[in-house]
């Protein structure tokens, strides 16, 4: 009887612990909730931060369970930045200018996305690159991209995993 009582307590503790973990996973970090707002306009890229000089510009915003990134690629003399493989939850994207190509990890699918098109990536590894002189896009992620840090965190070639993963490859 005593054993059964302790077993009940243990199961309860176990449930509470897993419950707390699952609840924590559902909500992003507290700094992610910035309230309702208009974040940007797709026609205006003048305020994007320069992450890689003359080649890659981006700014990001969070909501409790999502992150949105507005970015611009410029080929210039060096050609486009080649990012590494990415996997970061479910993702949607919109191409405002240019043309991009994406491929899934197992190469079972190649997709070209043109101006004005919306696309969805499943939660599997993928690569992407800009195929025109300039590409302007935004991408929406869920869950929140904690790896970016809070809004306003300076993004660099090494802190941006999409860029840094491909260094030396």
């Amino acid at each position, binding site marked *: 009887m*005593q*054993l059964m009582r*302790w*077993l009940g*307590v*243990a*199961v309860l*503790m*176990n449930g509470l*612990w*897993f419950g707390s973990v699952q609840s924590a996973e559902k909500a992003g970090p507290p700094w992610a*909730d910035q*309230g*309702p*707002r*208009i*974040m*940007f*306009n*797709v*026609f*205006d890229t003048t305020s994007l931060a320069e992450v890689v000089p003359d080649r890659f510009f981006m700014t990001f*915003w969070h*909501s*409790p*369970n*999502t992150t*949105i990134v*507005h970015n611009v690629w410029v080929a210039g003399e060096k050609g486009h930045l080649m990012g590494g493989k990415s996997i970061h*939850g*479910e993702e*949607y994207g*919109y191409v405002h200018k240019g043309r991009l190509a*994406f491929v*899934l990890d197992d190469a079972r*699918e190649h*997709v070209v*996305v*043109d*101006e*004005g*098109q*919306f*696309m*969805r*990536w*499943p*939660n*599997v590894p*993928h690569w992407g690159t800009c195929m025109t002189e300039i590409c302007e896009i*935004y991408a*929406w992620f*869920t869950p929140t991209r904690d790896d970016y840090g809070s809004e306003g965190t300076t993004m660099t070639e090494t802190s941006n995993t999409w860029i840094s993963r491909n260094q030396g490859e």
Partner: protein
Amino acid sequence: MLGRLICSVVFVLATASVVVAESAAPPASAPPRFDLEVFLDANKMELPVVVPGQLGFQHWQGMVSTAVAMHFKRDAGGHLPTQFRQYGDINLHLIEGKLDVEFADETQQPLHMKTGDVASWGNLSHRIACRSDECRLLIFSTPVLWQELGPDGGNPVPLYVDSAYYATHGRQ
């Protein structure tokens, strides 16, 4: 003391059993593995008309999120009435038009959106109102709106539309 020891041992065993069970046993019905897909072209946005003269609507389900496209049109009777809804975290891209987002919590300032604006908010009760002759927009939301909208290609009551209004004015 003995009780605490037993509790700890049982807790560890129970935890381990759950972890092992979760990692070793595949789910009874594995979720579909969605493909990478282009699902909408803003330059050729022809949505199924669900309220003739007033609304085109289409949705696409993901694993943990839903994309919804809407095309509001003002007809002789004006825009169709919209109601407050609350269904998770939302990003709204206003492709064309002027649109207001109002929140049930009046301490939240309304958003006045114009063509090209992208807005977001957390899980708040809100409604949208088109302020131009037409509004074309795309919403990404999480969690997935499976119970509300069902599978792609279905004919659900569109978001923000009162079910009674839809019953009398909608395409059935």
